[in-house]
């Protein structure tokens, strides 16, 4: 065997990775599930179902750990978050129902495609925040527009929200993927919120708050399935809480551009890994021969 360790060291390693996932998750508004699933299933050889269970808990913990601060600081747009939560929760329940029928390898391919799609959306041409936005009567009627204070640049920024109907449709799809993959839909929520013209930092704050509800719908289903293994999930939740707290402090010091670059890199790496896993010929999906070489490259 390449690696041998004690269960205590397993706990500590899982904690450290979760700390990292929580920090990035709260900074980027992605919940950290897309980081935790590959780390657990490939690096730590955890059964994929337990990895999904831990990953959804990771999303819940990032959301709960960072959203409090973001909502208090008026960084998150609560009205947009609550509106989209409705779509994403319905999607998550749909995904949870489909779960029993979806084969594991298809899930990996779906996951990889979702990541690649998000990365593509994030590197598209930047939108000028002062530019005009399409009129959206629904956004007007529901008073979705908002403003926030960017401490990095010291500016008070007001913004108008648009394309709320497209946002609802995208988040329904995001919810389905979340239910299927345990990713909390953050990677869909971020480009959706950007499409609705929320500023980047508001996107990540809003996404973090929103993800809690999506993840809860999925987590309830996973819990009943017996996929929430406390030995794995305990250190993950703990690490993510600590990481999320770090993330909410870092967000005020880091430039948006830096956050965006980290985001795209992480997405691309994950997308490649997941697609590779989805297209690798079967064997036992949890103990593929390829994963041993990934542990020791």
């Amino acid at each position: 065997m390449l690696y041998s360790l004690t269960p205590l060291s397993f706990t500590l390693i899982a904690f450290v990775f979760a700390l990292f996932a929580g920090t990035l998750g709260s900074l980027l508004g992605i919940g950290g599930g897309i980081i935790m699933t590959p780390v657990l299933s490939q690096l730590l050889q955890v059964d994929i179902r337990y990895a999904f269970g831990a990953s959804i808990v990771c999303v819940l913990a990032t959301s709960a750990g960072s959203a409090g601060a973001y909502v208090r600081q008026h960084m998150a747009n609560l009205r947009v978050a609550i509106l989209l939560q409705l779509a994403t929760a319905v999607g998550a329940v749909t995904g949870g129902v489909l779960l029993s029928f979806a084969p594991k390898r298809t899930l990996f391919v779906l996951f990889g495609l979702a990541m690649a799609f998000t990365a593509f959306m994030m590197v598209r041409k930047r939108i000028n925040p002062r530019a005009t936005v399409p009129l959206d009567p629904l956004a007007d009627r529901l008073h979705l527009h908002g403003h926030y204070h960017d401490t990095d640049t010291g500016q008070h920024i007001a913004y108008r929200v648009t394309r709320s109907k497209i946002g609802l449709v995208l988040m329904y799809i995001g919810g389905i993927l979340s239910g299927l993959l345990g990713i909390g839909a953050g990677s869909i929520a971020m480009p959706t919120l950007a499409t609705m013209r929320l500023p980047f930092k508001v996107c990540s704050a809003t996404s973090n708050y929103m993800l809690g509800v999506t993840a809860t719908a999925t987590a309830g289903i996973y819990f009943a399935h017996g996929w929430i293994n406390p030995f794995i999930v305990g250190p993950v939740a703990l690490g993510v809480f600590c990481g999320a707290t770090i993330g909410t402090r870092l967000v005020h010091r880091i430039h948006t551009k830096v956050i965006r670059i980290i985001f795209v890199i992480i997405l691309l790496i994950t997308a490649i890994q997941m697609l590779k896993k989805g297209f690798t010929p079967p064997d036992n999906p949890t103990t593929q021969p390829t994963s041993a070489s990934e542990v020791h490259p």
Partner: protein
Amino acid sequence: MTLPTVPPPPPSSTAEPPVVRHVEIAISYILRVGVILSLSLIILGIAITHVRHPEFRTETMPLEAASKVAPIFPYTTADTLNYMEHFRGRGFVVAGILVLIFIPVASTIASIFAYARLKDRAFVLISVGILLVLLVGFVIGHLQTPTHRGPPPPPTTEP
């Protein structure tokens, strides 16, 4: 698309009335209390597990085996309470996770009341909708519980 467009509003026109801040403060308070409760239960659970299993600190094993040392754990609320009564670490960790799962439900309930106070009917309805969908999700999850696994054995039979 040739939709009419509007420029972003000037920053001065966007001051939020203080009552709207109340919704935010209430929700962030619920999130914080929930996090502290959940965190305490999880830390306690992990500590108990490693105190009860001193071999977890010394016994080395292959990587694939390390995540499988505790394959039996509660996955219903009743079992979770049962494990906690027997002072099993995994019961406390799962209880912490259940608190975590309940936090967004609690903040949704809070937003129903907060928007009702603001007389914002649309958002009361949306929040009620979210709550109902979550409940449906929990019910479906409960119905889908695989029966072939059987209930986890009572914690007393384990070392």
